């Protein structure tokens, strides 16, 4: 059952120079799927994510999340939709500096006016699962990058959203923390059957997913499914990337070998 449907979506930025960021893009994401969207710089990855997260509206085409059409909602309903159906993980964590880790995590629930007992229960399970107990009372500027990203993931999970959107979640992390975060995401995907859409530059990160979707200049380019071994999947991703870059792999910023 598809949880996210992208149907012929086009996004045009009007301005002095008209820029077609996304062109006639269509794909579906099934419930419980872990999808990576890859593509070179300027291919429209972030625009796509903004469209899905209803921050931006498509010029034409339709996006359907869990049978809801965000384009039919008004501003107030949109805010509530984002609050209840979507969870976000950002590249630079975007934790609020004045709140402690614990408070950052429960923030979506407090905004929704949920009872304290529910919040405490959820945070207890999440803290155990994501191993957050040791720094729950610290402020974001007192913890490491990996800890911060784990906190951000916990914040994205606490309201049990239908869809989790991740924008370069490993972009600011070293290889050790990256692996930790990615394993965490894939285990959440498996155990909780959470649907995750991740935008990334990094083929290693992409290799943790079930499926990788490649876009180029806002258009669909290719997609590959994962096989049993991550190593070979990674190799296949690299192959598509070199194809994508027209033989010039250097277009992709950093390729780290595990």
């Amino acid at each position, binding site marked *: 059952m598809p949880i996210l449907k992208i149907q012929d979506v086009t996004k045009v930025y009007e301005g002095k120079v008209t820029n077609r960021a996304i062109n006639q893009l269509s794909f579906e994401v099934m419930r419980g799927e872990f999808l990576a969207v890859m593509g070179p710089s300027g291919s429209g990855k972030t625009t796509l994510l903004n469209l899905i*997260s209803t*921050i931006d509206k498509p010029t034409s085409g339709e996006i359907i999340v869990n049978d809801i059409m965000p384009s039919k909602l008004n*501003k*107030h309903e*949109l*805010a*509530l*939709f*984002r*609050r*209840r159906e*979507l969870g*976000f993980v*950002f590249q630079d964590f*975007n934790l*609020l*500096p*004045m*709140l402690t880790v614990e*408070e950052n995590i*429960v*923030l*979506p629930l*407090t*905004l929704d*006016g949920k009872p*304290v007992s529910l*919040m*405490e229960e959820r945070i207890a399970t999440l803290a155990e699962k994501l191993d957050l107990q040791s720094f729950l009372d610290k*402020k974001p*500027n*007192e913890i490491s990058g990996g800890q911060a990203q784990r906190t951000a993931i916990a914040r994205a999970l606490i309201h049990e959203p239908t869809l989790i959107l991740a924008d370069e979640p490993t972009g600011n992390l070293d290889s050790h923390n990256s692996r930790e975060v990615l394993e965490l995401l894939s285990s959440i995907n498996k155990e909780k059957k959470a649907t995750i859409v991740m935008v990334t530059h990094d083929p290693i990160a992409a290799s943790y997913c079930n499926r990788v979707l490649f876009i180029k200049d806002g258009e669909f380019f290719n997609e590959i499914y994962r096989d049993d071994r991550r190593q070979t999947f990674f190799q296949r991703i690299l192959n598509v990337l070199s194809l994508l870059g027209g033989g010039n792999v250097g277009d992709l910023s950093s390729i780290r070998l595990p």
Partner: protein
Amino acid sequence: MFHPDIENGFLGNVSIVGMIIAEIILVLFSWFFIFYSVKAFLEARSKEFAILLHLGMEKKQLSKLIFLETLLIGTVSIVAGILFGYAFSRFFFMIVREILMLEELPLYLSWEPFVLTITVYLSAFILISLFSVRFTPEKNLIDLFKGYSEINGTSGYSIRRAIIGLVCIATGYTLALLTSRMTMYSFGVAIIILITIGTYLFFSDTTHFILEKIKSNKHLYWKKYRMLSVAEQSMILKSNSKMFFVVTMVTALAFLCVGLLATLSSYTSQYDKMNPLGLIYKGHTDNPYEYEHITSIMRELEHKGLSYHMASFEVKKQTSSFTQYEVEVFSESDINSLLFSYGYPFVRLDPGEGMFIPYSEESIQKLSNLTVETTLIENDVDITVNKVYPKLIFPSSIISLNSIIISDEDFERLIVPYKAAPNVEPGYHLFTFDIPQWFETTDVGLAISSRVSHEYLKDHYSLPYYFENAGLNYSFILSTYSLFTLVGLLVAAVFLLAAGSFIYFKLYTSLELEKKKFEVLKRMGLTDIELKKIVNAYLVPQFFIPLGVALLHSLFAFVALQNLLKHLANISIVKELILAFVFLVIIEVIYFYLIRWRYITHVRD
């Protein structure tokens, strides 16, 4: 101030000194203000400077850049300010003239104010631009790039200091309530010190203490957007407690300024009631100048074409058996002659009856319930005093607190003079001039009143007569008062706007961080209504906690003042004060909405 007419002193030295003090306060404060604003804007531009330094600009060149920029802005604003100021000075003089009831004040152009303004503010700008560069702490480029947005996670409050703060304020308030005339100076100093310390600790510790208490209760704390705003407030208070302290004290000062003015205005407005008589001449029974003075005053009044009604009194002092002290006795017909000109009801007394003369509005109430049976000891006349005249007849400075009216029959029986007679005057003659246009008597009897006021400054008042000219006094009070009003309102306005602007600057410097925060929240799903609520919860405490504390401070200050005034002049300042405070609060609310509007538009996009 440099106007020759003002300088040549028709207002008296007091007003000139007042103006100079106000001017110094304004200059000092505007210096501080410029310094603060320049610093805030430089901080907001730290990213730009970082790029310049990154491109290889020397620190010296950067200093030069900032110096030149500040100087340029300074020069332009000084020129604009002077032009505006000059354009409005004509208008300003017109207002001054209206208020002070002066003759035409010719527009006067002198070079002194211009030179003064230019030197004061240009030097301020030069010094500040030099200092602000010199004293910016050496920061790494990387920190500059990130801006000044880092948050210090140190929570440095102690419960002991929090409690001391509260205790200081409470003690200050109690002292203010207990202040009397005797303890005015010692208490005054103590109150100022206590309140200052208390306010500082209140913002540096007590508020944190309260917020921490809220935070420890999750049912209170984890409720909707409250968590966000409480956490924000505690962060803001942590890093800006000094600023809040300054803002509070400045606002309190502004309130005090306006409140004092209100007090003065109530004094002038009640002056009329307290001084029902135009001119009063009081002399000893054997005053040799009596005839000469009275005729000269009458001649002057006739010369000016003012209608008047003169009443003369013979007042005798006697000893009351009831109190064993002296009592001043007026006769029924003397009083009736004055009451006739007032248009008040007459007094009818039978022999043996007496009536109190009230010395203040309140004393009417107090005396009406009093019945005194007394004997005027010298002449053995029994009097029962059981009434009070329901209106003020004489200003309180003229008669003693113990004055009664008795019937003419009894008055004639008072032959034996007051028992302390040779040492103390056994009575006096009183001449009152009831003049409907009493405020036009300014220059009547000038020679007499100048001799009286001259004598007043000596230790011992030895003249056999006393003269009071309500019109002249009134014109003095009015001109000093209106000058104070003008200067005070100016100072208060500057203070209030400055207090608001401090907060605005702070908001401006942290705007980038705030924008980012709202970006995150919007993505997380924040409705427009919630956004406004969060902004409110963010701004309201910053604006109104200092305002509220300042209001409370000045409230207690005025309770103390009212206590003092009750002893001194018997006037009530409640109505004027409430009016003035409401006015100030309304100004602040308008200012708040202005800034809130700017802030929301900034944050929304």
